[in-house]
């Protein structure tokens, strides 16, 4: 394993930074002001991609968990934990940006909207995932338990969403769902900006995941060398 950053990752670093700068330009200067929601709508260019990519991240953890249990190959476990951490970063971004948006538009920081509620529970599941791993010394056991909880946690999310959705639709919501979000008129510049931001976040996701995976691998390698040194 070479310790220097691989070429494709170096390229991804630069592409991520460039795309970030371009996205700022697109979001704040290229995309027009939205008629109903005004400036606050611009949050949506960052909010939506970070939200769905966090799901992708936790989905990667699910798949890595299944793969680890089948193969006992620790690289899968490293991918799993790396993806959880990146996923949490994206999820926190999505949650905070959502609250920032909700304040002027829904006139509140928080509603018991199904997506918002499910999302918070989702975050708690992955905080629990991190705490679980912290409480286990044996690396094999840590990997197995992490994999199992990554599977159980992710499977519970759709049922949680559905049950909270039902709860809110059957019961009168305290704050009526604002329909403007769904029938927002997309002008071509907006759509272009939106697509660009989604690609930008995908690139950032891959870059972060790769970095985090490498960090995990290097930590394991250091551990291995330390073992060798102490046994020599």
């Amino acid at each position, binding site marked *: 394993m070479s310790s220097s950053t691989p070429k494709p990752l170096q390229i991804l670093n630069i592409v991520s930074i460039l795309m970030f700068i371009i996205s700022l330009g697109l979001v704040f200067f290229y995309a027009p002001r939205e008629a109903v929601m005004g400036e606050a709508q611009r949050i949506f260019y960052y909010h939506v991609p970070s939200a769905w990519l966090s799901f992708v991240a936790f989905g990667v953890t699910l798949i890595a968990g299944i793969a680890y249990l089948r193969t006992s190959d620790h690289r899968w476990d490293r991918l799993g934990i790396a993806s959880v951490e990146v996923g949490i970063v994206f999820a926190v971004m999505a949650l905070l940006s959502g609250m920032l948006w909700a304040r002027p538009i829904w006139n509140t920081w928080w509603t018991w909207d199904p997506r918002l509620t499910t999302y918070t529970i989702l975050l*708690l599941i992955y905080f*629990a995932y991190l*705490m679980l791993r912290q*409480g286990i010394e044996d690396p094999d056991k840590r990997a197995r*338990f992490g994999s199992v909880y990554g599977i*159980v946690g992710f499977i*519970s999310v759709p049922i949680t969403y559905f049950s*909270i959705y039902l709860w809110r639709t059957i019961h009168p919501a305290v704050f009526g769902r604002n329909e403007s979000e769904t029938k927002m008129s997309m002008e071509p510049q907006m759509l272009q900006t939106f697509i660009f931001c989604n690609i930008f976040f995908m690139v950032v996701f891959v870059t972060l995941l790769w970095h985090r995976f490498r960090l995990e691998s290097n930590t394991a390698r250091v551990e291995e060398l330390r073992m060798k040194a102490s046994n020599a």
Partner: protein
Amino acid sequence: MKSYLQAILAIAHKDLAAEIRSRELVSAMLVFSLLVVLIFNFALDLDKSARENVAAGVLWVTFTFAGTLGLNRTFAAEKDRGSLDGLLLAPVDRTAIYFGKLISTLVFMLLVEAVVLPVFTVLYGISLFNILLFGVILLGTFGYGGVGTLLACMAAQTRTRDVMLPILLFPVTVPVMLGAVRASTGILANAEWGEILTWINILVVYDVIFVAVAVMVFDYLIEE
């Protein structure tokens, strides 16, 4: 197959026989449940109509908290005594251990619930004696115990185990909690059957999915 069922029943029977002798766990769960019921009454300062609105919620919070108490012991007690190895040394499928433990946990929880229900009926002035409600309690307890048994096995093997279980368990059992509370509220308020049925369906779906998942992954939690 016969020896598989025999092993499940042997494990459940062993837990129940030991509990009948010591009565440590169920009595602790029971006292705790009654305390929760009382504390809710003080904390929410309930009048008659408010009590009717929150009854199902209070009931299920009580059940799940007491359940956590019981779940915390199922594997931790075996682990402390070293007797978990005794189970693992036996030539039985690992899932028999899961089902045996699930059965004993369910019996403990249902026992506690059977005592809490009449007490609750008296204290809150709401009759809870309703066959449908019993069905919902059975489904909700089964789902909670099913996931709980799996995660309790995990938590018992971590450094911070007693603290770990609720943190692992609560976020993934939100649908059970919500489904059970909504179905119970609907039944107590004589709501439309269709509405109640929706929630019962969620409970059934959750129970089936999670017990299936538990069976598939349980091996990985106890082998080294």
